[in-house]
């Protein structure tokens, strides 16, 4: 409990000095690393995007055999266990292991995010497929379509809005996750933040945090809009 005033002092130390008389000079001093930081943030977004897309593709492929209405029970329970495993191992632990295997950098972080995303989205997609009506699938089967064709033309068009909406939601989450991966050396803005915290560069900490917050808020806003459009077009 002795620590709480210390934490207060620490946070107070990160508040930049912005004076009204030379506001822009102070702002420029505070945001001295702006270009570097924005580039790192762009990398972070890229990690989140590529991770979401690759993880989403794997999730989509695994979600059909994981839907109880579409596949035999033993396949469903096996795939579900696999998905559970993928989403229960913490992303950061995956990142640590992948950094060791693939070397430092954004690629390891992206893989960690992709694995976790595949596990989380696979389950949600499968539930979405389970809610789809089977009549269209039977129509495709009656026309001689294979199992893959039945999924592609009978089920997928029905669950597409849900799939897109969950995918966008996951992207929002992944942006947050990607912002910390740098702590274990897996790319993005986290590394710079870690450095700032380690070297007690108080003002840099607040500057980077403000930029992360702004990015997260912008992505949330954008994804929220897109999600409403996707779900709106389904109704």
């Amino acid at each position, binding site marked *: 409990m002795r620590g709480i005033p210390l934490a207060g002092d620490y946070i107070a130390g990160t508040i930049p000095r912005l004076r009204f008389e030379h506001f822009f000079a102070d702002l420029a001093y505070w945001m001295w690393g702006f270009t570097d930081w924005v580039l790192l943030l762009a990398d972070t977004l890229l990690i989140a995007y*590529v991770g979401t897309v690759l993880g989403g593709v794997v999730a989509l492929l695994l979600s059909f055999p994981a839907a109880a209405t579409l596949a035999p029970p033993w396949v469903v329970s096996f795939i579900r266990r696999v998905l559970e495993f993928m989403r*229960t191992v*913490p992303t950061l*632990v995956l990142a640590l292991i992948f950094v060791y295997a693939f070397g430092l950098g954004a690629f390891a972080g992206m893989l960690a995010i992709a694995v976790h995303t595949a596990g989380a989205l696979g389950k949600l997609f499968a539930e979405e497929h389970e809610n789809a009506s089977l009549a269209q699938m039977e129509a495709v089967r009656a026309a001689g379509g294979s199992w893959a064709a039945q999924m592609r033309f009978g089920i997928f068009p029905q669950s597409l809005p849900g799939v897109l909406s969950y995918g966008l939601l996951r992207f929002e989450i992944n942006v*947050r996750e990607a912002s910390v991966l740098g702590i274990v050396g897996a790319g993005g803005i986290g590394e710079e933040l870690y450095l700032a915290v380690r070297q007690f560069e108080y003002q840099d900490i607040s500057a980077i945090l403000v930029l*992360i917050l702004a990015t997260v808020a912008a992505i949330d806003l954008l994804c929220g809009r897109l999600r409403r459009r996707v779900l709106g077009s389904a109704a």
Partner: protein
Amino acid sequence: MMKSRLATPLVFGFLLLLLIGGLWRMDASPERIFNGLTKLGWLVALMWPPSAGGVLPELLLSLLESLAMAFLGTVLAVVVALPLALLGAGNVIGNVLLRFSVRRLYDGLRGIDTLIWALIFVAAVGMGPFAGILALAVPDIGTLSKLFSEALESADRRQVEAVRAAGANRVLSVRLGLIPQVAPVMLSQILYTLESNARSSTVLGIVGAGGIGLALADRIRINNWDEVAFIVLLILAMVAAIDFVSRRLRLKIIRAS
């Protein structure tokens, strides 16, 4: 019609280009992927059989520490979030400006990941589980306050009015008219938070904020992959147990209300 037909392939093309550009930027050459996968297969082979490395009691103790951090972090978050939620709920406090600024505060707390808070608190209050508890609590305060105040706003106002009509003051009318209505929803959200904290608390040790994460990061650093596998399995077992208990409790709450 023409526009939307042209727009879809354009959007897809752009997204695909972004994907390829991203992979290129991450230096995802086939050679690197192949080497990495080889190394990964080798690691998985080294992970078998998982072993406690002769320090099982210590590992269980630090797992318990993670669990305790998750629990205390959740309690702290609830204690702080409850008054903040009342400030942010439109039907409790009429002031629009206050409500707006409190809600932005929630967003700010929520927007920063637990692990970043952990970094900051480790630097501020020193290494150890106390930093972890604070790091878990702070973003949860944002999430819970938001969820609580939304629950409060959707509550039925007639019960509040009934309590007021019986002569109660404002505080009592919130306590007796509003809180009982939303308590089941709140409890269920608190349980969700506990589940999520149980997951997060296992990695906080990587930055020195207490719990099993420190042991895990250490084993990875010194390449004891059988012990890494053991610790990961311990974490999975704990998360599954917490999820199970919390699901049972939640079902009970839902049935009771």
